[in-house]
């Protein structure tokens, strides 16, 4: 493997040194964080399959890319995510009730029920509202980092996107801007090898995506995205580099999307089950578990307890979220502008005068 390949926990290796700056408590925190995401995904998918929520996105197999990066960043670093990084605010301490509220799009949702699930926004955790448009957030992170540089602050802006996004215009403009202005920005290219059905080898003519960075004068590395400690280590170093004024890094986090693209997707149409099974063997949580075992800080009771706590936390939040109703109708008109223009106010008033109190029938329609 080249110098640009970052891996700490070799698969199947016998012993490791604890990486600098990490304590056993850190390792356990990361392990627990990954289990939290796994439990969240399992629960969200069940809610969707049973028709209690309309849609969901999961990140099975990609937990280390979220937890490893989140653990290495400071709470005041800015995150511009795609829709598969909700593990980051979860790890930063976002309220589970708020997370669940977003799944239901209810009145308590911080996005006020305006977006499909998986488009979380948490300003208190500097987790900036995601779009569904692929790659459009990458350039926002660059602009944010340019502002950080202008203010001579030592925060870092980071952005997550997939291998599919590396084809989008905004990927190009972002790397180009980053090469020119050298702002403190980290690009996490989560190469999970699929953009819905399209495999990465049909997405781009280069197999090592981090090499794209070089063409823009940006530092690029490839990281074992299923090795949470490697992800942590590489992020930590890249963030320090950025804080030291040395500019951007493109980190290709090499992983695999074990689950479907979303609850609407059926991966059996475009890939072999054997392939997925092979990657399940490389599960980032299992890998970390083996490491903890070697350090003698893992027991079956410990694991069971972590799962139990995660599931309980989820159940409490979901039960609560399901009881909260839709956002009030007038909220649909709010936050379009800082102040509601009079024409919009009139539109709202007309709707409320004519239709408030109407209820949807079983077909989800207003009865005629």
């Amino acid at each position, binding site marked *: 493997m080249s110098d640009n390949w970052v891996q700490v926990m070799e698969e199947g290796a016998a012993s490791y040194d604890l990486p600098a700056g990490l304590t056993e408590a850190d390792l356990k925190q990361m392990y627990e964080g990954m289990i939290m995401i796994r439990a969240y995904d399992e629960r969200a998918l069940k809610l969707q399959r049973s028709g209690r929520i309309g849609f969901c996105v999961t990140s099975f197999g990609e937990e280390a890319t979220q937890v490893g990066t989140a653990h290495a960043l400071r709470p005041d670093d*800015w995150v*511009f995510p795609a829709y598969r990084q909700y593990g980051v605010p979860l790890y930063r301490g976002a309220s589970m009730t708020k997370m669940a509220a977003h799944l239901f799009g209810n009145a308590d*949702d*911080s*996005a*006020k029920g*305006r*977006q499909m699930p998986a*488009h979380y*926004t*948490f*300003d208190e955790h500097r987790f*900036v*509202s995601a*779009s569904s*448009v692929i790659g*459009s957030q*990458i*350039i*926002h*992170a*660059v*602009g*944010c*980092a*340019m*502002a*950080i540089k*202008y*203010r001579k602050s030592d925060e870092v*802006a980071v952005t997550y996107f997939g291998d599919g996004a590396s084809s989008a*215009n*905004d990927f*190009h*403009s*972002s790397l*180009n*801007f980053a090469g*020119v202005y050298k702002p403190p920005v980290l690009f996490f290219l989560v190469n999970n090898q699929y953009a819905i059905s399209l495999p990465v080898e049909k997405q781009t003519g280069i197999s090592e995506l981090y090499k794209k960075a070089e063409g823009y004068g940006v530092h690029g590395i490839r990281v074992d995205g299923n090795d949470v400690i490697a992800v942590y280590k590489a992020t930590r170093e890249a963030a320090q580099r950025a804080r030291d004024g040395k500019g951007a890094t493109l980190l290709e986090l090499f992983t695999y999307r074990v689950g479907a693209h979303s609850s609407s997707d059926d991966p059996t149409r475009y890939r072999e089950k054997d392939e997925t099974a092979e990657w399940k063997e490389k599960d980032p949580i299992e890998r970390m578990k083996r490491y903890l075992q070697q350090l003698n800080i893992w027991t079956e009771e410990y694991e069971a307890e972590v799962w139990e706590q995660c599931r309980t936390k989820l159940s409490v939040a979901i039960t609560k979220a399901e009881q909260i109703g839709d956002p009030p109708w007038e909220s649909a008109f*709010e*936050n*379009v*502008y*800082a102040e509601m*223009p*009079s*024409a*919009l106010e009139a539109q709202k008033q007309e709707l409320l005068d004519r239709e408030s109190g109407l209820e949807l029938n079983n077909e989800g329609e207003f009865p005629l």
Partner: protein
Amino acid sequence: MPQKTLLQAINDGLKTEMSRDDRVIVMGEDVGINGGVFRATDGLYDQFGPDRVMDTPLTETGIVGAAIGMAVYGLKPVPEIQFADYTYPAFDQIVSELSMFRYRSGGEYACPVVIRTPYGGGIRGGLYHSQSPEAYYTHTPGLKVVIPSTPYDAKGLLAAAIRGEDPVIFMEPKKIYRSFKADVPEEDYEVPIGPARIAREGTDLSIFCYGAMVELCEKAADKAAEEDGVSAEIVDLRTLYPVDEESVLNSVKKTGRALIVYEAHKTCGYGAEISALIAEKALEHLEAPIKRVGGLDTPFPYTLEYVYMPHPLRVYNAICDVMAFE
């Protein structure tokens, strides 16, 4: 009081806003050392330096996208898109990101970015240096769309746009960038976003227009006054969204006749919205059908620009048509 062209007033406005607020950042293609291809940002680089007057790579989606990120952080970027025709490469960032940020984040993140862009024909710019894309942006919830037609309004509206909390598409009629000078106060002032300006009072018909069309409508109205004794009221809309409905309707209620003049393609152009507004809310006051003079429903031709563009005679003829209806 100093006399300035519309272009000089914009330059003055940018300097004023940058001096009073260090969050204001100017960015775009050739805006720095070169002072902008139209010289709208002339002198800013020397006065404020490269950190605040940024020559950017040639990517409109990058310019607008980076401005969004800056605004999320708390700055007030004022990107220039060199020609309104080149807002299309940034279209996704404008209509899917900039316009929706506040809404989709439940009000958590605002994006007060002011995109300045010269628009319209009259400079022999051909297909790609002449377009008037305002209707795309007035059709996009979350954006405000402003078009000044006088130097005074240019400086004042720009100040209001930059000091506001919403994204603004600030479209500058490049045909009249340098065509006349008028009083522009040295001190800073705001012309509020929203209210229209009655450019000329009249009693027989209302002409609704904006940007470079105002001057042209005035010429047509002069001819109609002199030759036909028609008293035309000219309403310079100034803000296309949110539009000053009250001024539009009051004028129509007074005159009973409406003509709308704009240089964008006629079909589904902004004039259609004004026409619909009048039809919905003041139909009973009309004494004649509403008439629109727009640009042709063709791409913008280079040599035959003078055929494409509304001109005073075409507007005068339209005035006669509206007045002839009994």
